[in-house]
């Protein structure tokens, strides 16, 4: 065997090991969701569920409002995702292309808020929502995130800046206005980054626990993360049910990723983001 072949084999072994380590927790979660409670404790996490049981899934639906959790989360995540894509595109265009006094200062000030952890704004935000009488509504879940985030605006702005200004100049000569330029030229060229933003936003909204936990209190607004966290007892919890719920909650995310996968890879290749 030549040295290149050896090196290549070693590389693949390393990559395979890395892939296994990354995927293993998900596979074990999925595997655990087919085990009985006693089967879970008497076998190792990686031992295949045998005989496989669907009882965890049925009790998830019979004892808990799993479909409700999923539908609520879907409503919130889709609303936030649409809002983010719309508002991040608008403000990113303003920050990337429009000239107005204090633009860069405003932009960097805005981006600087990315450094502030969510926990710091938790109490004030909750205070605002409860004074607006919005606690325990969908509006409280959606409003804080729907008008764009510094991260989203930064991401899209950086991408807009890679689009040649000449393209825009040419369009202006042809009589296009700002809105037409954004709608007909910039946005169609930015599909990969918008797909990335949509995916990241959807995943973050889907996985957000802290804010929904604080601001909602009734079953009609319970999202999936809050629902799953409530399944855990003070000291002991029914792990197989918790893991089954986690596995179910994972499915929509996998679907979203598969749907936008091509665009995400392309946008990473284009912007050099990692």
């Amino acid at each position, binding site marked *: 065997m030549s040295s290149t072949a050896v090196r290549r084999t070693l590389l693949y072994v390393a990559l395979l090991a890395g892939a296994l380590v990354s995927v293993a927790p998900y596979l074990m979660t999925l595997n655990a969701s087919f085990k009985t409670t006693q089967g879970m404790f008497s076998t190792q996490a990686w031992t295949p569920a045998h005989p496989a049981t669907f009882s965890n899934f049925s009790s998830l639906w019979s004892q808990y409002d799993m479909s409700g959790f999923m539908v609520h989360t879907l409503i919130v995540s889709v609303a936030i995702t649409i809002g983010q894509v719309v508002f991040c595109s608008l403000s990113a265009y303003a920050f990337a292309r429009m000239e107005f006094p204090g633009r860069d200062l405003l932009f960097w000030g805005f981006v600087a808020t990315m450094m502030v952890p969510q926990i710091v704004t*938790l109490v004030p935000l909750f205070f605002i929502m409860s004074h607006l009488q919005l606690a325990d509504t969908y509006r409280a879940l959606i409003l804080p995130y729907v008008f764009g985030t510094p991260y989203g605006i930064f991401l899209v702005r950086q991408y807009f800046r890679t689009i040649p200004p000449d393209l825009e100049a040419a369009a202006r000569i042809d009589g296009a206005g700002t809105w037409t330029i954004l709608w007909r030229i910039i946005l169609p060229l930015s599909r990969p980054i918008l797909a990335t933003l949509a995916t990241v936003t959807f995943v973050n909204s889907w996985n957000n626990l802290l804010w929904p936990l604080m601001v909602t209190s009734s079953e009609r607004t319970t999202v999936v993360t809050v629902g799953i966290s409530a399944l855990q*007892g003070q000291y002991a919890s029914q792990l197989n049910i918790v893991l089954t719920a986690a596995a179910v909650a994972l499915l929509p995310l996998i679907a979203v990723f598969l749907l936008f996968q091509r665009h995400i890879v392309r946008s990473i290749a284009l912007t050099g983001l990692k």
Partner: protein
Amino acid sequence: MLKLTTRRFAATAACAALVGLTAACGGSSSAKAGGTVTLTYMIWQDSEKAAYQASLDAFEKAHPNIKVNLELVAWAQYWTKLQTGAASRNMPDVFWDHLAYLPQLSKEGIITDISSKIKAANLDTSVYNPKLLSQWQSGSVTYGLPKDWDTIATVYNKSMLAKAGLTADQMNHLTWDATTGGTFVAALQKLTVDVNGKHPNQAGFDSKHVKTYGIALEAPNGQQDWWDFGLQNGCKLQDKAYGKWTVNTPACVQAIQFEQDLRDKWHVAAPGSLTNTPNAADLPTILAKGDAATTFDGDWDLTAFQAAMPAGSWGVSSLPSGPAGTGTVFNGLSDAIYSHTKHPAEAWELEQWLASPASEKLVADSGTVWPGIPTLNGGFAAAWKQKGVDVTAFQTGSEGNTMGYPLTTSNTTFNNVVLQDFNQVWLGQMTPQAAADDVNTKSNAAITSGN
């Protein structure tokens, strides 16, 4: 002009679509609709939800103008949520209260003193266990009516007991002392088996490769382990309720030393690497996996044992008694009323119902929790007997020598320090005396500084 209009139109349309979407999804947050008041009742235990929902259904039937929204928040997030709510003056109207948090909640003035309401309603409080009721009272102030109680008992694996030649009756009468270990350690030696089938008191026992330990002890603060050993050894955690911590007195240190010895000297208890919180598996899991034959746990975990282990494979016995006799921690919860609730009258109605014999009977008879009203205890025991488990050891414990949950404003500091230090003690990296001194000093300092 046209361009501007288009632009404005598009922006308005986008906003309208979004606002419409969010508004369409948003339910009404108004608590009062058509004369009906909606109360929020927050609890933390999933296994108790069904019983309380049944109780609330009965309450709503009797009070058509009150709706109760039962909110379940896991213990891990419960107090964070409550405190965030307190800071924003938006808390559930009625919620479960724990003695560990009572002093802070009352100091902050966010729970209602119900003593005048009790008087006005002419409630007979003598139905409650006096030890439980007094925990929620301080001077002339009452912060809640006892909802339930819990004690600690031994939970064991029946077949492992039989294999070691031990009977349930023997388990109920074990004794320990710090020097010889007593019949308690002797029993645990029989239950502890290494990979070669040898016991810790036999030559050639391999303490590094133990298949099953006699016991697994685990508690984030001591409630299910050293507090009980301490009580059995004459140790007092505090000089008085709301007083100073006294965990570094000889009786307490000796009890902590005894627990360390169970691990490091006699090799009959699972090591800290297996049981230290928060990374360890919970006690029902440890027992179900066969890593230990017995454990000390509270009755709140009975449902978890029942789910994790085959029916009829486990049993409950009393805790061992020590040099100072028997002893177990005796704790209980109450329902607290938020002092700034918009519906104080309705909240008091709910509190009264939840603490009434009718509701407590409903909850106890379903085998959910032991009731705060002692005459209803039989219902809980009967429910578990039907499931094939004799749980009376918890009740025997409650009727014997008990200590209440420590009442202090320094709970947060105590919990942090005790977890940190005792995790080291159970790994054999810190002496019981040093840990007790540290916990005592820091917790007492927190009382003075008001943290």
